[in-house]
């Protein structure tokens, strides 16, 4: 791993954003038939690991993400024109419609196929949020509505909501402390 990437990862680990790292792999190396060390093996594994096509993925994410936002923009304009709303008023209905579209695509079984190609382009917009909830709901229908759908719907989206709310709370408290009294900087 590049040196530059290690520091932010350590930072994220300390604040429990990345999974914890436990010490010691206990690989039973002493009685193993292999003479290679763990460190050397990691180098071998790294050498054979096909690298992710980062540039290609970023380009695809850019275009698909941008396209989804354009659709959102179009829907927003439609609400503004059709229902005489301001941009602020049209924001919520627009998000609701985007969520509906995402749920429909998830139900048709195509969202995951598009996402394999588009990566963050489909995951980052609010459509990704809706897909995470809808896919979990569909999957766990097998376990019933209460224990399956109800309990598991937020399996993937839960972290987003939890961290968003906690961040908003902390920011609100800081604002209150610093006496800004609300509004924005």
């Amino acid at each position: 791993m590049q040196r530059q990437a290690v520091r932010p990862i350590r930072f994220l680990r300390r604040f429990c954003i990345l999974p914890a790292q436990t010490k010691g792999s206990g690989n039973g190396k002493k009685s193993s038939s292999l003479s290679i060390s763990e460190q050397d093996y990691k180098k071998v594994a790294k050498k054979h690991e096909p690298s992710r096509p980062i540039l290609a993925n970023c380009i695809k994410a850019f275009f698909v993400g941008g396209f989804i936002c354009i659709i959102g923009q179009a829907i927003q304009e439609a609400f503004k024109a059709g229902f005489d709303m301001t941009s602020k008023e049209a924001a919520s209905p627009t998000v609701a419609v985007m969520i509906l579209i995402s749920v429909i695509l998830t139900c048709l079984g195509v969202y995951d196929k598009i996402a394999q190609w588009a990566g963050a382009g489909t995951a980052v917009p609010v459509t990704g949020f809706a897909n995470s909830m809808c896919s979990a709901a569909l999957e766990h229908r097998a376990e019933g509505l209460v224990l399956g759908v109800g309990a598991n719907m937020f399996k993937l989206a839960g972290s987003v909501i939890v961290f968003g709310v906690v961040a908003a709370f902390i920011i609100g408290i800081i604002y209150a402390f610093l006496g800004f009294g609300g509004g924005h900087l």
Partner: protein
Amino acid sequence: MQFLWAFIVGGLICVVGQLLMDGVKLTPAHTMSTLVVAGAVADALGWYDPLVEFAGAGASIPITSFGNSLVHGALTELEKVGWIGVITGIFDLTAAGISAAIIFSFLAALVVRPKG
């Protein structure tokens, strides 16, 4: 014109997400959580609202705007009713999105099976 900026800004935010997933090797859940917090912090600094004005859906569709809305709700209520507003106002603006996601997902689960 805003359409062009919506495309560019929305696309760029997605590229940041892609770099977090491919470069820093975060899982999608970690990436989205990071972006939500980033959106919240950006709003705290007063940067996100102007971005929404400028790029429209390019800033309001990505998950970062969820963080933005949560902070908005908290701060608006803080202004109105004081300290307790930080807790009571958080979901004001995001209620639509979360409710829509829950309701549509639930209805979908009643009639649709996953295709694998």
